[in-house]
Structures are given as C-alpha cells and as structure tokens.
C-alpha cells in the first residue's frame, strides 16, 4: 500500500515551487516529454499512474530522487491492477452464479 499517492507528491512538489500546470508542461517540453494538460490533471487528481520515463523526467526537473518516486508508482500500479482483477473475477463469479440459478 503506497503511503502517499504519486499524484499528491507531484502536486506538492509543483506547489512548493509555485508553478502552474502550463509552466510544468513547458519545462517538460524542454526535456523532450510532450504531454497534454489533461494527462497532468489525471495524474494529480484522478490517481492515474504515469509511465516510468515520465517519472524520471519529473525527478530531473524537481531535482529529487527518482528511485523513491518509481517505487511508489510501482506499488500504486500493482495495487490498481490487483483491485481491477479482483473486481473482474467477482463480477464473473456473480454472473456464473446468477446463470446457474436460472
């Protein structure tokens, strides 16, 4: 279980330097990572896990250790996949039981 989500960490890092989302996108463009504003919104607000290359670029820009961010992102991604699979298996079981009853 990740202690704090990757999105919250990135939001805090951005807020500490008083950057808007557009400034962050410009600095990422300098590092040759062109992203849309919607991607950053989904990372910060909806808990989407960014790709490892993106995390490395962010660690470069914010001058933090990339290893911690990557391990937190990996944990969060594994947890999401786990939950997703669990839901799908439960749903399939529910359908199977409902069909058997008929």
């Amino acid at each position, binding site marked *: 279980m990740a202690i704090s989500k990757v999105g919250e960490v990135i939001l805090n890092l951005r807020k500490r330097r008083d950057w808007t*989302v557009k400034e962050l996108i410009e600095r990422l463009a300098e590092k040759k990572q062109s992203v849309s504003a919607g991607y950053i*919104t989904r990372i910060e607000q909806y808990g989407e896990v960014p790709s490892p290359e993106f995390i490395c670029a962010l660690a470069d820009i914010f001058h933090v250790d990339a290893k911690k961010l990557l391990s937190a992102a990996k944990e969060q991604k594994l947890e999401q996949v786990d939950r997703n699979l669990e839901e799908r298996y439960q749903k399939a079981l529910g359908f199977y039981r409902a069909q058997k009853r008929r």
Partner: protein
Amino acid sequence: MSPRRPAWRPKDIFYLTEEILTDYALAKGWTEPNQYVFNLKDIYEEAIYPRYEIIIREDIPLGWQQRTKLLGKAICRENTALIDPSIAATTGDNRYIFTLAHEFGHLILHKDSTYKCYQMDSRTIFQQEKEANLFAEALLMPLWHLKRRVKDHYGLKCPWRYMGRGKYCFTWNGITKIIFVVSYTQFCQTVAAPLTRYFCNVSTMAMALRIHKLGWILNRSAETFMGTATDAANLMSTALAVTKKAAITSDQLTHT
C-alpha cells in the same frame, strides 16, 4: 457598510467561457466546428484544471436546506467544488453536469470573496446565483454551437410557436413525429431532448430552460416555464437562509 460586489456583465462571462473552450479545442487539435463533441470531464481536465486548479469532491453528503436537497457547493477558499454523492458522475444522473458547471462558475467568478469583504444580502446572493447559471449555460451550451446544431438538425431559421395543449409536428433530421404536448415546459423539453447529446449530455430541463430564455419559442398561450429545483421561490428561501448566517459572520469580522 462594505461596498456591493460589482455585477459581472454577461459579455465578460461569455469571454471567459470562450477562453476555456478555445483552450479545450486547441488541446484536442480540432480545426472545424463540426468536429466539436463536448464532454465536461474532458473540458475540466484539459482546460479548467490547468487554468484555475479547481478540485472536485463527490464523497461528502451535503444534506438539505429549506426542504430542498443541496446538490452542490463551492468553497472558494479551498478552490473546491463539492457535489452530493447522490448525483455523482457514477450514478449517471444528468443533473451532475449542470451542477458541476454552476459550481465552477462560482469558483471562477466569485473568487475574490476570499480576500475582499463585500456586502452579502439576498440581492447579491441572487445575483451570484444568476451569474453562475449564466456561466454554466455559456460553457455547456454555447450559443454559436447551439445555433449551428439547430440549423443542421431541425433545419429551421425561425423560432417554434406554442399555441396551447395539442398535437405538434417535430422534424428531426428529416424524420417527422407527431407528439401530443400537454404544457409549455413539455414543449420546450421535447424540442431540447435530441440536442442534449451534442452538449455534454446535459439534462433536458437545463437545455429546455436555455432555449426558453433565448426566446426561440414564441409562447402564444398564458403558461409559464415551470422548472423543478430551479424555482424562484426555492432560490429566495436559500438566499434568506444564507443571509442570516452571513450577517452573523460579518458582525464578527467588523469587530476584529
């Protein structure tokens, strides 16, 4: 006494929403108006959050106020929009979209209530609610796009005419249907229903109110538009309740 907040002009609200929509169109890479398919979640992700950094929270039940359910609340200090979980995005209730846009309107237009002290009475609250409604309408159902869709699908340039109860002919995309209409509100809703899918799937009531306000339906009967939760009476009662609370807090502010 603190001064009154200067009212937002509808033109300035329109310019704000145009900025947001152009940001969105640029982010999506659209060049022609025929490609526009509006989705409020996308608009929030691509245009509203990068510009205004508004947070949405849908997990706090908001309760009741003056016998009506409170569907949304905007907290300017935290830049947060709260939506009641009963109409959250997952439920598929259409009222969610207009409520969310209304709260965005509050947060964007009335942001200076965090650092400026304005007089708060029922008139200013009425004005604020009207401005937020205008913002939501201009964001979700922009006039230029609405005109284009009506012209493309209804093929009309002149407005509709309502003469009272009876059978009416509606032509959509060349297909004609005869529908028995009971009231003016139902007429507006029948006109508005096929258009909602082009405008973020907003509720038919919101679209009907927009068309009624624009004056595209000539009303030759004595009926008026009867909305559901947006009645003037409800608005007045909520305004009075908030005024009482605001009077207490403004006293505290003047004493400190």
